Protein backbone atom coordinates (compact mmCIF):
# COMPACT_ATOMS: atom_id res chain seq x y z
CA UNK A 1 0.00 0.00 0.00
CA UNK A 2 2.94 2.38 0.11
CA UNK A 3 2.61 3.20 -3.60
CA UNK A 4 -0.52 3.98 -5.57
CA UNK A 5 -1.93 0.95 -7.35
CA UNK A 6 -0.17 1.17 -10.71
CA UNK A 7 -2.76 -0.63 -12.81
CA UNK A 8 -5.73 1.28 -11.57
CA UNK A 9 -5.69 4.06 -14.15
CA UNK A 10 -5.42 1.85 -17.21
CA UNK A 11 -8.19 -0.48 -16.12
CA UNK A 12 -10.92 2.15 -15.77
CA UNK A 13 -9.65 4.80 -18.13
CA UNK A 14 -12.46 4.41 -20.61
CA UNK A 15 -15.31 4.87 -18.16
CA UNK A 16 -13.66 7.58 -16.09
CA UNK A 17 -14.97 11.11 -16.61
CA UNK A 18 -11.63 12.64 -15.64
CA UNK A 19 -8.19 11.21 -16.31
CA UNK A 20 -4.81 12.79 -15.66
CA UNK A 21 -1.92 11.19 -17.52
CA UNK A 22 1.56 11.99 -16.25
CA UNK A 23 0.61 15.58 -15.54
CA UNK A 24 3.58 17.70 -14.54
CA UNK A 25 3.51 21.41 -13.80
CA UNK A 26 6.70 23.36 -13.24
CA UNK A 27 6.98 26.99 -12.22
CA UNK A 28 10.54 27.80 -13.18
CA UNK A 29 12.66 25.49 -11.04
CA UNK A 30 9.80 24.49 -8.77
CA UNK A 31 7.97 21.30 -9.60
CA UNK A 32 4.47 21.92 -8.26
CA UNK A 33 2.97 18.74 -9.68
CA UNK A 34 5.12 15.80 -10.70
CA UNK A 35 3.89 13.16 -13.09
CA UNK A 36 0.47 12.62 -11.55
CA UNK A 37 -1.56 9.87 -13.19
CA UNK A 38 -5.03 9.18 -11.93
CA UNK A 39 -8.47 8.20 -13.21
CA UNK A 40 -11.41 9.51 -11.20
CA UNK A 41 -14.32 7.11 -10.72
CA UNK A 42 -17.61 8.13 -12.23
CA UNK A 43 -20.37 9.17 -9.82
CA UNK A 44 -18.15 8.91 -6.75
CA UNK A 45 -16.65 11.40 -4.36
CA UNK A 46 -12.87 11.50 -4.52
CA UNK A 47 -10.97 13.37 -1.85
CA UNK A 48 -7.69 15.09 -2.66
CA UNK A 49 -5.64 15.84 0.43
CA UNK A 50 -2.10 16.81 1.25
CA UNK A 51 -0.12 19.39 3.23
CA UNK A 52 -0.15 23.04 2.22
CA UNK A 53 1.81 23.56 -0.97
CA UNK A 54 1.47 19.93 -2.04
CA UNK A 55 0.05 20.99 -5.42
CA UNK A 56 -3.64 20.25 -4.95
CA UNK A 57 -4.96 23.55 -6.21
CA UNK A 58 -2.40 23.50 -9.02
CA UNK A 59 -3.90 20.20 -10.21
CA UNK A 60 -7.36 21.79 -10.17
CA UNK A 61 -6.06 24.77 -12.13
CA UNK A 62 -4.52 22.47 -14.72
CA UNK A 63 -7.80 20.56 -15.07
CA UNK A 64 -9.92 23.74 -15.23
CA UNK A 65 -7.72 25.25 -17.93
CA UNK A 66 -6.41 28.18 -15.90
CA UNK A 67 -2.94 26.65 -16.15
CA UNK A 68 -1.49 24.53 -18.93
CA UNK A 69 0.46 21.50 -17.75
CA UNK A 70 4.17 21.53 -18.55
CA UNK A 71 3.85 17.94 -19.75
CA UNK A 72 1.12 15.32 -19.64
CA UNK A 73 -2.51 15.14 -20.69
CA UNK A 74 -5.89 15.79 -19.14
CA UNK A 75 -8.76 13.79 -20.62
CA UNK A 76 -12.29 14.64 -19.53
CA UNK A 77 -15.64 13.29 -20.71
CA UNK A 78 -14.11 11.79 -23.80
CA UNK A 79 -12.09 14.84 -24.85
CA UNK A 80 -8.43 15.66 -24.49
CA UNK A 81 -8.88 19.04 -22.76
CA UNK A 82 -5.18 19.78 -22.29
CA UNK A 83 -4.69 23.45 -23.10
CA UNK A 84 -8.40 24.26 -23.41
CA UNK A 85 -9.50 27.61 -22.05
CA UNK A 86 -11.53 27.61 -18.82
CA UNK A 87 -14.84 28.56 -20.47
CA UNK A 88 -14.54 25.62 -22.86
CA UNK A 89 -13.79 23.21 -20.02
CA UNK A 90 -16.83 24.51 -18.15
CA UNK A 91 -19.08 24.12 -21.17
CA UNK A 92 -17.90 20.56 -21.60
CA UNK A 93 -19.30 19.80 -18.16
CA UNK A 94 -16.45 20.19 -15.74
CA UNK A 95 -16.70 23.01 -13.23
CA UNK A 96 -14.32 24.17 -10.52
CA UNK A 97 -15.10 26.23 -7.42
CA UNK A 98 -12.52 28.68 -6.17
CA UNK A 99 -10.69 28.19 -2.90
CA UNK A 100 -11.15 31.87 -2.08
CA UNK A 101 -14.81 32.48 -2.86
CA UNK A 102 -15.29 34.91 -5.69
CA UNK A 103 -18.92 36.00 -5.94
CA UNK A 104 -19.75 38.81 -8.37
CA UNK A 105 -20.28 41.36 -5.58
CA UNK A 106 -22.64 43.78 -7.31
CA UNK A 107 -24.90 41.10 -8.74
CA UNK A 108 -27.69 39.60 -6.68
CA UNK A 109 -27.34 36.04 -5.43
CA UNK A 110 -29.79 34.94 -8.09
CA UNK A 111 -27.91 36.74 -10.85
CA UNK A 112 -24.66 35.17 -9.69
CA UNK A 113 -26.18 31.75 -10.22
CA UNK A 114 -27.79 32.88 -13.47
CA UNK A 115 -24.30 33.45 -14.89
CA UNK A 116 -23.59 29.77 -14.40
CA UNK A 117 -26.97 28.73 -15.78
CA UNK A 118 -26.74 31.01 -18.82
CA UNK A 119 -23.19 30.16 -19.83
CA UNK A 120 -22.48 26.69 -18.49
CA UNK A 121 -22.70 23.33 -20.18
CA UNK A 122 -25.48 22.04 -22.38
CA UNK A 123 -27.63 23.94 -24.83
CA UNK A 124 -27.64 27.70 -24.82
CA UNK A 125 -30.65 28.99 -22.91
CA UNK A 126 -32.54 32.28 -22.81
CA UNK A 127 -32.22 34.65 -19.87
CA UNK A 128 -35.71 33.76 -18.62
CA UNK A 129 -34.93 30.03 -18.52
CA UNK A 130 -31.60 30.80 -16.88
CA UNK A 131 -33.49 32.69 -14.17
CA UNK A 132 -35.83 29.75 -13.54
CA UNK A 133 -33.00 27.26 -13.47
CA UNK A 134 -30.93 29.47 -11.19
CA UNK A 135 -33.86 29.70 -8.78
CA UNK A 136 -34.16 25.91 -8.71
CA UNK A 137 -30.45 25.60 -7.94
CA UNK A 138 -30.74 28.18 -5.16
CA UNK A 139 -33.60 26.16 -3.69
CA UNK A 140 -31.43 23.07 -3.77
CA UNK A 141 -28.49 24.88 -2.19
CA UNK A 142 -30.66 26.43 0.51
CA UNK A 143 -30.12 30.01 -0.62
CA UNK A 144 -33.56 30.73 -2.07
CA UNK A 145 -34.41 33.20 0.70
CA UNK A 146 -31.34 35.25 -0.23
CA UNK A 147 -32.00 35.32 -3.97
CA UNK A 148 -32.52 39.07 -4.28
CA UNK A 149 -29.74 40.14 -1.92
CA UNK A 150 -26.45 41.37 -3.32
CA UNK A 151 -23.83 38.65 -3.10
CA UNK A 152 -21.60 40.98 -1.09
CA UNK A 153 -24.11 40.82 1.78
CA UNK A 154 -23.67 37.08 2.36
CA UNK A 155 -21.78 35.44 5.23
CA UNK A 156 -18.76 33.27 4.43
CA UNK A 157 -20.78 30.05 4.75
CA UNK A 158 -23.41 31.46 2.39
CA UNK A 159 -20.75 32.61 -0.05
CA UNK A 160 -19.32 29.11 -0.13
CA UNK A 161 -22.80 27.80 -0.82
CA UNK A 162 -23.17 30.40 -3.55
CA UNK A 163 -19.87 29.30 -5.05
CA UNK A 164 -21.17 25.73 -5.14
CA UNK A 165 -24.61 26.80 -6.44
CA UNK A 166 -23.04 28.81 -9.24
CA UNK A 167 -20.92 25.85 -10.27
CA UNK A 168 -23.93 23.50 -10.06
CA UNK A 169 -25.92 25.81 -12.31
CA UNK A 170 -23.46 25.14 -15.12
CA UNK A 171 -24.87 21.56 -15.21
CA UNK A 172 -21.54 19.85 -14.60
CA UNK A 173 -20.87 16.14 -14.92
CA UNK A 174 -17.74 16.59 -12.85
CA UNK A 175 -17.51 19.09 -10.01
CA UNK A 176 -14.17 20.05 -8.48
CA UNK A 177 -14.60 21.58 -5.02
CA UNK A 178 -11.61 23.45 -3.63
CA UNK A 179 -11.84 23.68 0.17
CA UNK A 180 -15.52 24.44 0.40
CA UNK A 181 -15.49 23.60 4.12
CA UNK A 182 -12.54 25.78 5.12
CA UNK A 183 -13.41 28.54 7.54
CA UNK A 184 -16.85 27.20 8.39
CA UNK A 185 -18.11 26.62 11.93
CA UNK A 186 -18.65 22.96 12.91
CA UNK A 187 -22.41 23.20 12.41
CA UNK A 188 -21.91 24.87 9.02
CA UNK A 189 -19.54 22.07 8.08
CA UNK A 190 -22.28 19.53 8.84
CA UNK A 191 -24.70 21.39 6.59
CA UNK A 192 -22.14 21.73 3.81
CA UNK A 193 -21.30 18.03 4.01
CA UNK A 194 -25.00 17.26 3.58
CA UNK A 195 -25.07 19.48 0.52
CA UNK A 196 -22.07 17.69 -1.01
CA UNK A 197 -23.82 14.35 -0.39
CA UNK A 198 -26.96 15.62 -2.09
CA UNK A 199 -24.96 16.76 -5.10
CA UNK A 200 -23.30 13.37 -5.30
CA UNK A 201 -26.71 11.71 -5.10
CA UNK A 202 -27.59 13.50 -8.33
CA UNK A 203 -24.94 11.42 -10.03
CA UNK A 204 -22.37 14.18 -10.31
CA UNK A 205 -18.77 13.06 -9.99
CA UNK A 206 -17.04 15.07 -7.28
CA UNK A 207 -13.39 15.67 -6.59
CA UNK A 208 -12.79 17.68 -3.44
CA UNK A 209 -9.71 19.27 -1.96
CA UNK A 210 -10.21 19.41 1.77
CA UNK A 211 -8.34 20.03 4.98
CA UNK A 212 -11.22 19.19 7.32
CA UNK A 213 -10.16 15.58 7.74
CA UNK A 214 -13.16 14.03 9.44
CA UNK A 215 -15.39 15.47 6.72
CA UNK A 216 -13.30 14.32 3.80
CA UNK A 217 -12.82 10.85 5.30
CA UNK A 218 -16.55 10.63 5.88
CA UNK A 219 -17.54 11.77 2.42
CA UNK A 220 -14.97 10.24 0.12
CA UNK A 221 -15.16 6.85 -1.52
CA UNK A 222 -11.53 7.21 -2.36
CA UNK A 223 -8.77 9.50 -1.15
CA UNK A 224 -5.73 10.68 -3.08
CA UNK A 225 -2.81 12.03 -1.09
CA UNK A 226 -0.40 14.50 -2.60
CA UNK A 227 2.93 15.54 -1.12
CA UNK A 228 5.50 17.76 -2.81
CA UNK A 229 3.60 17.41 -6.06
CA UNK A 230 3.69 13.60 -6.06
CA UNK A 231 0.82 11.23 -5.50
CA UNK A 232 1.94 9.24 -2.45
CA UNK A 233 -1.22 7.30 -1.66
CA UNK A 234 -4.47 6.31 -3.26
CA UNK A 235 -7.16 4.22 -1.62
CA UNK A 236 -10.19 4.11 0.63
CA UNK A 237 -10.17 6.51 3.59
CA UNK A 238 -9.33 3.61 5.90
CA UNK A 239 -6.42 2.48 3.75
CA UNK A 240 -5.04 5.99 3.43
CA UNK A 241 -5.24 6.82 7.13
CA UNK A 242 -3.37 3.62 7.90
CA UNK A 243 -0.65 4.38 5.39
CA UNK A 244 2.68 5.08 7.10
CA UNK A 245 3.95 7.39 4.38
CA UNK A 246 0.78 9.46 4.59
CA UNK A 247 0.97 9.68 8.35
CA UNK A 248 4.57 10.80 8.20
CA UNK A 249 4.23 13.20 5.29
CA UNK A 250 0.85 14.63 6.01
CA UNK A 251 0.14 14.29 9.69
CA UNK A 252 3.74 14.41 10.85
CA UNK A 253 6.09 11.64 11.99
CA UNK A 254 4.82 9.62 14.94
CA UNK A 255 1.32 10.87 14.23
CA UNK A 256 -0.72 9.80 17.19
CA UNK A 257 -3.11 12.73 17.27
CA UNK A 258 -6.53 12.60 15.75
CA UNK A 259 -6.42 13.61 12.15
CA UNK A 260 -8.28 16.88 12.22
CA UNK A 261 -6.06 19.66 11.09
Amino acid at each position, binding site marked *: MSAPAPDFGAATMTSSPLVLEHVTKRFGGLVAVESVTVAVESGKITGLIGPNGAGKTTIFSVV*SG*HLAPTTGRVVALGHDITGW*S*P*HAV*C*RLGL*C*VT*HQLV*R*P*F*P*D*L*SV*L*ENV*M*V*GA*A*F*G*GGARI*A*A*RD*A*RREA*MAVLDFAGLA*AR*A*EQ*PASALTLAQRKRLEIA*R*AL*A*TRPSVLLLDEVLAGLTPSEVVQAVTLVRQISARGITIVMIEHVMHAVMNLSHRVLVLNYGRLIADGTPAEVTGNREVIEAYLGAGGDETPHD
Partner: protein
Amino acid sequence: MKAAGLRPAAAAAPALGVALALVPLIAPHNITVLNLGFFTFLYVAQGLAWNILGGFAGYISFGYAAFFGLGAYTTALLWLHGWTPVLTFPLAGLCAAAFSLVVGVPTLRLIGPYFSIATIGVGEAMRILMLNLDKVTGGASGLNLPTVVPSKGWFYLAALAIAAVAYVTAVWVRGSRFGLGLAALRMDQDAAETLGVRTALFKNVAHVISAFLVGVCGGLFAMYFQYLHPDNVFSFTESISLVLIALIGGIGTIWGPILGAAVFFAVQDYLQTSYPAFHLLVYGVLLIVILLFEPRGLAGLAARLAGRRRVPAPVAVTPAAPGTVAPPPAQGGAL
Protein backbone atom coordinates in the same frame (compact mmCIF):
# COMPACT_ATOMS: atom_id res chain seq x y z
CA MET B 1 -40.30 40.29 -18.78
CA LYS B 2 -43.72 41.53 -17.79
CA ALA B 3 -45.12 45.05 -17.76
CA ALA B 4 -44.68 45.01 -14.00
CA GLY B 5 -40.94 44.83 -14.56
CA LEU B 6 -40.87 48.12 -16.44
CA ARG B 7 -39.56 51.02 -14.44
CA PRO B 8 -40.86 54.55 -14.88
CA ALA B 9 -37.44 55.45 -16.30
CA ALA B 10 -37.85 52.91 -19.09
CA ALA B 11 -41.20 54.39 -20.03
CA ALA B 12 -39.78 57.92 -19.75
CA ALA B 13 -37.23 57.34 -22.49
CA PRO B 14 -39.64 56.91 -25.43
CA ALA B 15 -41.76 59.81 -24.15
CA LEU B 16 -38.70 62.02 -23.89
CA GLY B 17 -37.59 60.95 -27.36
CA VAL B 18 -40.94 61.83 -28.94
CA ALA B 19 -41.05 65.18 -27.11
CA LEU B 20 -37.56 66.06 -28.31
CA ALA B 21 -38.43 65.01 -31.85
CA LEU B 22 -41.20 67.63 -31.89
CA VAL B 23 -38.79 70.50 -31.19
CA PRO B 24 -37.79 71.12 -34.85
CA LEU B 25 -41.48 71.31 -35.75
CA ILE B 26 -42.20 73.87 -33.05
CA ALA B 27 -39.06 75.95 -33.51
CA PRO B 28 -37.68 75.21 -36.98
CA HIS B 29 -35.62 78.41 -37.05
CA ASN B 30 -34.16 78.44 -33.57
CA ILE B 31 -30.62 77.58 -34.66
CA THR B 32 -29.21 77.81 -31.12
CA VAL B 33 -31.55 75.17 -29.74
CA LEU B 34 -31.18 72.89 -32.76
CA ASN B 35 -27.38 73.08 -32.63
CA LEU B 36 -27.28 72.46 -28.93
CA GLY B 37 -29.62 69.51 -29.43
CA PHE B 38 -27.52 68.12 -32.28
CA PHE B 39 -24.31 68.12 -30.26
CA THR B 40 -25.98 66.87 -27.11
CA PHE B 41 -27.59 63.94 -28.93
CA LEU B 42 -24.36 63.19 -30.76
CA TYR B 43 -22.60 62.90 -27.42
CA VAL B 44 -25.49 61.08 -25.75
CA ALA B 45 -25.12 58.46 -28.45
CA GLN B 46 -21.35 58.26 -28.01
CA GLY B 47 -21.57 58.24 -24.23
CA LEU B 48 -24.07 55.37 -24.36
CA ALA B 49 -21.86 53.54 -26.83
CA TRP B 50 -18.69 54.09 -24.80
CA ASN B 51 -20.53 52.87 -21.73
CA ILE B 52 -21.18 49.45 -23.29
CA LEU B 53 -17.49 48.66 -23.06
CA GLY B 54 -16.43 51.13 -20.35
CA GLY B 55 -19.40 50.76 -18.03
CA PHE B 56 -20.83 47.30 -18.62
CA ALA B 57 -17.57 45.46 -19.24
CA GLY B 58 -15.40 47.79 -17.14
CA TYR B 59 -12.80 48.49 -19.80
CA ILE B 60 -12.09 52.24 -19.60
CA SER B 61 -10.91 53.36 -23.02
CA PHE B 62 -9.29 56.73 -23.68
CA GLY B 63 -9.04 56.06 -27.38
CA TYR B 64 -12.52 56.46 -28.82
CA ALA B 65 -11.55 59.50 -30.87
CA ALA B 66 -9.95 56.99 -33.22
CA PHE B 67 -13.39 55.52 -33.98
CA PHE B 68 -15.02 58.93 -34.23
CA GLY B 69 -12.30 60.19 -36.56
CA LEU B 70 -12.32 57.07 -38.72
CA GLY B 71 -16.07 57.32 -39.10
CA ALA B 72 -15.80 61.01 -39.97
CA TYR B 73 -13.12 60.46 -42.59
CA THR B 74 -14.92 57.44 -44.07
CA THR B 75 -18.00 59.55 -44.70
CA ALA B 76 -15.95 62.53 -45.88
CA LEU B 77 -13.88 60.59 -48.42
CA LEU B 78 -16.82 58.64 -49.82
CA TRP B 79 -18.81 61.85 -50.03
CA LEU B 80 -16.02 63.46 -52.00
CA HIS B 81 -16.17 60.44 -54.30
CA GLY B 82 -19.78 61.13 -55.06
CA TRP B 83 -21.64 59.04 -52.47
CA THR B 84 -24.73 60.33 -50.75
CA PRO B 85 -23.45 61.13 -47.25
CA VAL B 86 -26.29 59.39 -45.38
CA LEU B 87 -25.57 56.14 -47.20
CA THR B 88 -21.97 56.23 -45.97
CA PHE B 89 -22.95 56.15 -42.28
CA PRO B 90 -23.13 52.33 -42.04
CA LEU B 91 -19.72 52.14 -43.69
CA ALA B 92 -18.38 54.75 -41.28
CA GLY B 93 -19.57 52.51 -38.47
CA LEU B 94 -18.14 49.38 -40.06
CA CYS B 95 -14.78 51.02 -40.63
CA ALA B 96 -14.60 52.05 -36.97
CA ALA B 97 -15.80 48.58 -35.89
CA ALA B 98 -13.13 46.87 -37.99
CA PHE B 99 -10.46 49.08 -36.48
CA SER B 100 -11.79 48.33 -32.99
CA LEU B 101 -11.11 44.65 -33.63
CA VAL B 102 -7.55 45.40 -34.73
CA VAL B 103 -7.03 47.40 -31.54
CA GLY B 104 -9.14 45.28 -29.23
CA VAL B 105 -7.83 41.79 -29.92
CA PRO B 106 -4.39 42.60 -28.49
CA THR B 107 -5.26 45.36 -25.97
CA LEU B 108 -8.35 43.82 -24.37
CA ARG B 109 -6.07 41.14 -22.96
CA LEU B 110 -4.67 43.86 -20.72
CA ILE B 111 -6.30 44.43 -17.36
CA GLY B 112 -7.48 47.69 -15.81
CA PRO B 113 -5.16 50.69 -16.11
CA TYR B 114 -2.89 48.88 -18.57
CA PHE B 115 -5.72 48.72 -21.07
CA SER B 116 -6.56 52.39 -20.53
CA ILE B 117 -2.95 53.46 -21.10
CA ALA B 118 -2.72 51.36 -24.25
CA THR B 119 -5.83 53.05 -25.64
CA ILE B 120 -4.29 56.50 -25.07
CA GLY B 121 -1.36 55.35 -27.18
CA VAL B 122 -3.59 54.01 -29.94
CA GLY B 123 -5.69 57.18 -30.02
CA GLU B 124 -2.71 59.51 -30.25
CA ALA B 125 -0.95 57.29 -32.79
CA MET B 126 -4.03 57.49 -35.02
CA ARG B 127 -4.12 61.28 -34.75
CA ILE B 128 -0.47 61.61 -35.73
CA LEU B 129 -0.81 59.03 -38.50
CA MET B 130 -3.79 60.86 -39.99
CA LEU B 131 -2.00 64.19 -39.68
CA ASN B 132 0.79 62.77 -41.82
CA LEU B 133 -1.35 60.96 -44.38
CA ASP B 134 -1.96 64.30 -46.08
CA LYS B 135 -2.67 62.70 -49.46
CA VAL B 136 -5.75 61.05 -47.96
CA THR B 137 -6.84 63.22 -45.07
CA GLY B 138 -5.64 66.61 -46.18
CA GLY B 139 -3.17 66.50 -43.31
CA ALA B 140 -2.64 69.67 -41.35
CA SER B 141 -4.62 71.77 -43.79
CA GLY B 142 -7.70 69.67 -43.26
CA LEU B 143 -10.36 68.50 -45.65
CA ASN B 144 -13.08 70.72 -47.04
CA LEU B 145 -16.36 69.02 -47.79
CA PRO B 146 -19.28 69.99 -50.05
CA THR B 147 -21.64 72.55 -48.58
CA VAL B 148 -24.92 71.26 -49.97
CA VAL B 149 -26.52 70.06 -46.77
CA PRO B 150 -29.96 69.65 -45.21
CA SER B 151 -31.44 71.95 -42.60
CA LYS B 152 -30.42 72.19 -38.96
CA GLY B 153 -33.69 70.51 -38.09
CA TRP B 154 -32.67 67.49 -40.18
CA PHE B 155 -29.34 67.21 -38.34
CA TYR B 156 -31.10 67.56 -35.02
CA LEU B 157 -33.41 64.67 -35.87
CA ALA B 158 -30.60 62.54 -37.31
CA ALA B 159 -28.55 62.91 -34.13
CA LEU B 160 -31.64 62.15 -32.07
CA ALA B 161 -32.22 59.00 -34.13
CA ILE B 162 -28.65 57.78 -33.56
CA ALA B 163 -29.00 58.53 -29.84
CA ALA B 164 -32.22 56.49 -29.82
CA VAL B 165 -30.48 53.58 -31.53
CA ALA B 166 -27.64 53.78 -29.01
CA TYR B 167 -30.16 53.85 -26.16
CA VAL B 168 -32.04 50.81 -27.44
CA THR B 169 -28.74 48.99 -27.98
CA ALA B 170 -27.55 49.78 -24.46
CA VAL B 171 -30.87 48.71 -22.91
CA TRP B 172 -30.81 45.49 -24.91
CA VAL B 173 -27.21 44.71 -24.01
CA ARG B 174 -27.76 45.28 -20.32
CA GLY B 175 -30.80 43.06 -20.11
CA SER B 176 -29.44 40.26 -22.26
CA ARG B 177 -27.43 37.15 -21.61
CA PHE B 178 -24.55 39.02 -23.26
CA GLY B 179 -24.91 41.84 -20.71
CA LEU B 180 -24.93 39.36 -17.83
CA GLY B 181 -21.67 37.96 -19.16
CA LEU B 182 -20.17 41.46 -19.41
CA ALA B 183 -21.20 42.25 -15.83
CA ALA B 184 -19.65 38.98 -14.66
CA LEU B 185 -16.36 39.54 -16.43
CA ARG B 186 -16.22 43.15 -15.21
CA MET B 187 -16.33 41.97 -11.61
CA ASP B 188 -14.16 38.88 -11.89
CA GLN B 189 -12.76 37.72 -15.16
CA ASP B 190 -11.41 34.39 -13.89
CA ALA B 191 -14.64 33.50 -12.14
CA ALA B 192 -16.62 34.40 -15.26
CA GLU B 193 -14.39 32.15 -17.37
CA THR B 194 -14.81 29.34 -14.87
CA LEU B 195 -18.58 29.59 -15.29
CA GLY B 196 -18.35 29.35 -19.06
CA VAL B 197 -18.30 33.01 -20.14
CA ARG B 198 -16.20 33.54 -23.26
CA THR B 199 -14.57 36.63 -21.84
CA ALA B 200 -12.23 37.44 -24.72
CA LEU B 201 -15.04 37.16 -27.26
CA PHE B 202 -17.50 39.18 -25.19
CA LYS B 203 -15.08 42.04 -24.58
CA ASN B 204 -14.37 42.29 -28.28
CA VAL B 205 -18.03 42.18 -29.24
CA ALA B 206 -18.77 44.98 -26.75
CA HIS B 207 -15.88 46.97 -28.21
CA VAL B 208 -17.09 46.42 -31.78
CA ILE B 209 -20.69 47.43 -31.00
CA SER B 210 -19.64 50.63 -29.28
CA ALA B 211 -17.05 51.49 -31.94
CA PHE B 212 -19.67 51.04 -34.66
CA LEU B 213 -22.02 53.52 -33.00
CA VAL B 214 -19.26 56.05 -32.42
CA GLY B 215 -18.14 55.66 -36.04
CA VAL B 216 -21.65 56.50 -37.25
CA CYS B 217 -21.59 59.58 -35.01
CA GLY B 218 -18.32 60.58 -36.65
CA GLY B 219 -19.93 60.24 -40.07
CA LEU B 220 -22.83 62.47 -39.08
CA PHE B 221 -20.43 64.98 -37.59
CA ALA B 222 -18.44 65.16 -40.87
CA MET B 223 -21.62 65.85 -42.78
CA TYR B 224 -22.63 68.54 -40.33
CA PHE B 225 -19.29 70.28 -39.97
CA GLN B 226 -18.23 70.12 -43.64
CA TYR B 227 -14.60 70.45 -42.64
CA LEU B 228 -12.39 67.83 -41.05
CA HIS B 229 -9.02 68.19 -39.39
CA PRO B 230 -7.17 65.29 -37.73
CA ASP B 231 -6.42 67.42 -34.67
CA ASN B 232 -10.15 67.95 -34.36
CA VAL B 233 -11.85 64.60 -34.86
CA PHE B 234 -8.93 62.47 -33.61
CA SER B 235 -8.26 64.73 -30.61
CA PHE B 236 -7.58 63.39 -27.15
CA THR B 237 -10.17 65.91 -25.93
CA GLU B 238 -12.80 63.99 -27.93
CA SER B 239 -11.76 60.74 -26.23
CA ILE B 240 -11.74 62.35 -22.80
CA SER B 241 -15.18 63.86 -23.39
CA LEU B 242 -16.76 60.41 -23.61
CA VAL B 243 -15.10 59.28 -20.38
CA LEU B 244 -16.18 62.48 -18.62
CA ILE B 245 -19.75 62.17 -19.87
CA ALA B 246 -20.02 58.63 -18.56
CA LEU B 247 -18.34 59.44 -15.24
CA ILE B 248 -20.34 62.60 -14.58
CA GLY B 249 -23.58 60.95 -15.54
CA GLY B 250 -22.99 57.58 -13.90
CA ILE B 251 -20.77 54.89 -15.33
CA GLY B 252 -22.41 51.55 -16.05
CA THR B 253 -25.93 52.94 -15.95
CA ILE B 254 -28.29 53.57 -18.86
CA TRP B 255 -29.28 57.10 -17.87
CA GLY B 256 -25.80 58.16 -16.84
CA PRO B 257 -24.43 58.96 -20.30
CA ILE B 258 -27.69 60.70 -21.21
CA LEU B 259 -27.63 62.98 -18.16
CA GLY B 260 -23.87 63.34 -18.45
CA ALA B 261 -23.97 64.50 -22.06
CA ALA B 262 -26.76 66.98 -21.30
CA VAL B 263 -24.84 68.53 -18.40
CA PHE B 264 -21.58 68.38 -20.34
CA PHE B 265 -22.93 70.46 -23.19
CA ALA B 266 -25.05 72.76 -21.07
CA VAL B 267 -21.92 73.70 -19.12
CA GLN B 268 -19.81 74.02 -22.23
CA ASP B 269 -22.40 76.04 -24.13
CA TYR B 270 -23.00 78.38 -21.22
CA LEU B 271 -19.39 79.00 -20.33
CA GLN B 272 -17.42 78.67 -23.53
CA THR B 273 -18.52 81.92 -25.11
CA SER B 274 -18.00 84.15 -22.09
CA TYR B 275 -15.15 82.32 -20.35
CA PRO B 276 -13.24 80.17 -22.86
CA ALA B 277 -11.64 77.06 -21.34
CA PHE B 278 -13.30 77.76 -17.98
CA HIS B 279 -15.61 74.80 -18.61
CA LEU B 280 -12.65 72.44 -18.27
CA LEU B 281 -12.16 73.62 -14.70
CA VAL B 282 -15.86 73.07 -14.02
CA TYR B 283 -15.61 69.50 -15.38
CA GLY B 284 -12.59 68.87 -13.17
CA VAL B 285 -14.37 70.08 -10.03
CA LEU B 286 -17.53 68.21 -11.01
CA LEU B 287 -15.55 65.02 -11.56
CA ILE B 288 -13.81 65.21 -8.17
CA VAL B 289 -17.06 65.96 -6.35
CA ILE B 290 -18.83 63.10 -8.09
CA LEU B 291 -16.09 60.55 -7.54
CA LEU B 292 -15.88 61.51 -3.87
CA PHE B 293 -19.56 61.68 -3.00
CA GLU B 294 -21.56 59.79 -5.60
CA PRO B 295 -19.47 57.40 -7.71
CA ARG B 296 -22.63 56.40 -9.54
CA GLY B 297 -22.75 59.91 -10.98
CA LEU B 298 -25.84 61.97 -11.66
CA ALA B 299 -27.87 58.83 -12.32
CA GLY B 300 -26.95 57.55 -8.86
CA LEU B 301 -27.77 60.94 -7.37
CA ALA B 302 -31.12 61.01 -9.13
CA ALA B 303 -31.94 57.54 -7.86
CA ARG B 304 -30.96 58.59 -4.36
CA LEU B 305 -33.13 61.70 -4.56
CA ALA B 306 -36.00 59.62 -5.83
CA GLY B 307 -35.75 57.72 -2.56
CA ARG B 308 -34.91 54.45 -4.21
CA ARG B 309 -32.55 52.12 -2.48
CA ARG B 310 -30.16 50.86 -5.08
CA VAL B 311 -27.27 48.53 -5.17
CA PRO B 312 -24.33 50.40 -6.67
CA ALA B 313 -24.28 48.37 -9.82
CA PRO B 314 -25.26 48.63 -13.44
CA VAL B 315 -27.57 45.74 -12.83
CA ALA B 316 -29.73 47.26 -10.14
CA VAL B 317 -31.87 45.32 -7.75
CA THR B 318 -35.35 46.43 -6.90
CA PRO B 319 -36.28 46.32 -3.27
CA ALA B 320 -38.52 43.30 -3.15
CA ALA B 321 -40.89 42.25 -0.44
CA PRO B 322 -39.38 39.35 1.48
CA GLY B 323 -40.19 36.06 -0.11
CA THR B 324 -41.30 37.44 -3.44
CA VAL B 325 -39.04 37.08 -6.40
CA ALA B 326 -39.34 40.34 -8.27
CA PRO B 327 -37.33 40.40 -11.50
CA PRO B 328 -34.59 43.02 -11.27
CA PRO B 329 -35.10 45.70 -13.90
CA ALA B 330 -31.92 44.69 -15.69
CA GLN B 331 -33.42 41.46 -16.87
CA GLY B 332 -36.93 42.80 -16.87
CA GLY B 333 -36.97 44.47 -20.26
CA ALA B 334 -35.30 42.62 -23.05
CA LEU B 335 -35.33 38.99 -24.10
